[in-house]
């Protein structure tokens, strides 16, 4: 019987366009599962709560750069309106809608972090929780579970 997994977070939908970037984090009773999709494979990494040594995160400027790229593309999309033809306006509106939507979604998602999870055997980057709102939610869920698991394992260990 398979372990029931509850999805905690996933990388943004734009990651579907780039192979190897899409990944998700799932929660089970006693571990976290990191599922990374690479073209035709899905690779899994398990992090048992009793084994997690550290979660480190650093502030990153990636969200500023990504927003700047979408903003520049939005400005370029406005150049279609110089065409003074009805079809130019339609194409321009489509591009403005796409890049404007991407810019807004990037801004609303908030600042980015680089998040690493560490056990004695491995250190992995958790891309799905690198946006601030997802990281806060992730911490709220995961920290009590890790603390509880490690307290109980300490209590079980004979002195």
């Amino acid at each position, binding site marked *: 019987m398979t*372990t029931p997994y509850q999805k905690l977070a996933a990388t943004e939908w734009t990651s579907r366009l780039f192979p190897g970037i899409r990944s998700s984090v799932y929660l089970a009773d006693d571990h976290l599962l990191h599922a990374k999709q690479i073209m035709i494979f899905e690779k899994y990494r398990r992090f048992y709560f009793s084994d997690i040594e*550290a979660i*480190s995160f650093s502030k990153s400027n990636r969200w500023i750069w990504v927003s700047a790229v979408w903003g520049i593309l939005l400005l370029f999309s406005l150049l279609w309106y110089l065409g003074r033809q009805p079809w130019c306006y339609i194409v321009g509106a489509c591009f403005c809608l796409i890049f404007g939507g991407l810019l807004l979604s990037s801004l609303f998602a908030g600042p980015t972090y680089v998040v690493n999870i560490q056990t004695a055997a491995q250190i992995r980057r958790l891309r799905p929780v690198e946006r601030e709102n997802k990281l806060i939610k992730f911490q709220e869920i995961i920290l009590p579970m890790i603390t509880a698991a490690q307290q109980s394992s300490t209590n079980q260990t004979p002195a």
Partner: protein
Amino acid sequence: MSAGAFCPICHHVLATTQWNLHEFTVCPNCQAPTRTLVFPAMVRTAGAPHPESRTETEAACFFHSNSRAENVCGSCGRFLCSLCTVAFGSEKLCPDCIYRKRRQSTDPEFRDQAILFDNIALFVLIAPVLCLVYIYFGLIFSALAIAIIIIGWRQQRTLVPRSKYRFILATGLALIEGGGWIALVWLIVWLIQSHPTDFGL
């Protein structure tokens, strides 16, 4: 004790004074604002296990006859010393069983990857169109994709829930591409038969 906590950006070891602070501190190497949450597992005294020597009346480890057995493998029942005991989640197993279970990949707890047949089917359908090979082998690729869909519908064993919509999409595409290829060939044959002179026949 483990080697310590690392900066997520430059992987430099962070000082213990930077652990579990409520505010961000600067990494001494890359100057990135960093916060590290360290758990008791970091300072667990387990370290490297040292198996104890056994006396004549004590059970021996299956792999080390001089070491005292301290655990029993949860899968095969072999006696194991502390060196040979591998804690895998809540179970204690021997290295042989872990290797065997990972090779067999029948137990979901030991599965570390899954093949995505739906993505393969979509790739088989889309790549020939992009490479213009579809014109020659369109029907073969469509049939291949349908075979992959039929196999993958039951054989795709992902650990996490995965929607079947990609399979349905691939089936639709396969039928359209296969039907389109047959229609294309029929059209070419009909054109040649109805206007043979235009084709130099």
